[in-house]
């Protein structure tokens, strides 16, 4: 026992015990406070996220409405004066197998 009491390391530990306990308590309190503060920030971000999601959903509805076939047809025909293509004038494109010295042309070639 005497030997232990005489150990300088044990003496130093004994001296540091109280400050360590106090520091630990402060660290715990600080950690708790940090966690609470982070939770506030998460809540704030969550709230922002929810608002952005809400806006996103509203924008999806708007986009969906704008891109509906009905709307596009109305704009194309009424505002732009477009008409449906004449099927007789449609030219069908087929990929040739051999390389030609031209990229495309009205074919005499048949597959």
């Amino acid at each position, binding site marked *: 026992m005497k030997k232990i009491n005489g150990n300088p390391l044990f003496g130093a530990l004994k001296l540091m015990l109280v400050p360590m306990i106090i520091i630990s308590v402060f660290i715990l309190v600080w950690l708790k406070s940090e966690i*609470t503060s982070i*939770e*506030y920030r*998460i*809540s704030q971000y*969550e709230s922002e996220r*929810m608002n952005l*999601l*809400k806006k996103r*959903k*509203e924008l*999806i*509805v708007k986009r*969906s*409405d704008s*891109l*509906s*076939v*009905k709307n596009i*047809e109305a704009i194309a025909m009424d505002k732009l004066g477009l008409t*449906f*293509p004449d*099927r*007789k004038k*449609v*030219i*069908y*494109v*087929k*990929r*040739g*197998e*051999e*390389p*030609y010295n*031209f*990229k*495309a*042309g*009205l*074919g*005499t*070639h*048949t*597959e």
Partner: protein
Amino acid sequence: MNIGGMNKRAVIITTVITFSFGLLFWRTFDLMLLRHETFVNKANVQQSQEIEIQVRRGVIYDRRGRELAVNIEQRSLYIDPTKVRSVPETAHKLSRALGIDKRKLLKKLDADRKFVWIRRKMDGKEMSRVNKLKISGIGYVPESERVYPRGAIASHLLGFVDIDNHGLEGIEKKYEKFLTSRGGKIRVSTDARGNILLAGDELESSGNSIVLTIDEMLQYTVEKALDAAIDKWKASSATAIIMNPYTGEILALANRPTFDPNSPGRSRAEYRRNRAITDVFEPGSTFKIVTAAAVLEKKLFKPNALFDCSDGFIEVGGKRFKDDHKAGIITMAQVLQKSSNVGTILMAQKLGKHELYKYSKLFGFGERTGIDLPGEVSGWIRDPESWSGTSMGAVPIGQEVAVTAMQVLRAYAAIANGGYLVSPYIVSRIVSPEGQEIYNRQNPEMKRVLQRDTTLLIRGMLEGVTRMGGTALEAAVEGNSIAGKTGTAQIFDTGLNRYSNEKYLSSFAGFFPANKPRLAMVVIVNEPKGDIYGGRVAGPVFKEIATRALAYLNVPMDSAPSENVVFVSNVNGFKGTN
């Protein structure tokens, strides 16, 4: 004074400190062990709150990923009547702000409850009006609202939901368990003011998304054509369906009258009915393909067999079945082309009632098609043992049989695809919120009901219907051959207990291009005014839709000359398509 080497003061201080630590230790022991549960429960009440996870329905897409049903976030207003200072004043204010009947509000505010809904899913303007009133005891709950951005487009397919987002009709009802998720509740921390402190918990839970087989463009084309038909013929109702004849995928389905699923309550219940699968009718001449296919299958007649229809009528069981015009002596192909009742009955008489019944069932009549939509009916065709004397005249030409538009379409799809009866369906894929595919209908269900040779013969005969001498010249499409059959059926008047002379059902069913079918389609126009014939009423609707559909799907014209094809070489990395 020294006690064991310590002075008195030190003894007192040591004793006080020891006693204090003893007290602290006891208190800690008491708090943490003896009354642990009590304090944990108190803390939970003070520092946490149970909130419901908001359930969001999955999105419904068309086959090209266009949104047909989505969600938006709304706020719902509730009130805690126990916190209301003045009930009459609050009722008065809310009544003015929201346009709700004051008496109803008074009744709600007098309730002995802590939670009463005032207005579900409010818009922003209503919310700001209420907020300005500074009413005590009110609060908002976030809720999602189902929105159908395309309005009435495909409403009978999509269905609709109630205020609590439960599916009531259509896909929304049929796939309810896939579109929603369980939800539940989570406990979250709160501060002294009741603010929620989150630690990354998900407050929202989404259901699976559904991808339909329908194509918005084709759907819109069909809806527009039906609107025009209703307008032109002042018809009581109309239905049109487009199907991929090889797989059973429904590409478009529309009914008139229709409704807006965003506000289903504003339309009458009958407008919300999906007539394509819930309403039965006597098909009339569109049913004649069953008789024709059966006699060809049984090799009772050859396509060039002649039928004497010169009298213009035939008597069966004492009842006279007439043709519209005396057709003379005609071939089997002409029987279908001219829609001769006499010729068809002559065919059926050789076939016999049991075989006719058997083939009707093989074509799927009298049984549900199994489409994944709610409310489908089976229709009926009576057992041959219970047929009357006139049935052998009526059934072959589509009378005394009750069918749905979907069944008629499926029968024509069987002719188009070479003899397979397909199962129509509307949902092709179900995708989880994480993007994982949990259902994919890849292998179409089909069973062979006719030999390919038989279908090719019938197909050729049906092509004649839209050609010179046929009953549906007005269904012909420029550039592509159409195979189809008209139907003009008198509607049975239950009040008069006989067939009406004024009410008819005009129809046209077929597929196109006839030589290489891409789509099968049926058009039904109920009670048209001004004309009654399927070829003149439903035929032009068919033509209108088919013309647009062929252009949209880039189907070349039958006559497309090969010299007009541009050949593009694959040099320089160009990737053309065949």
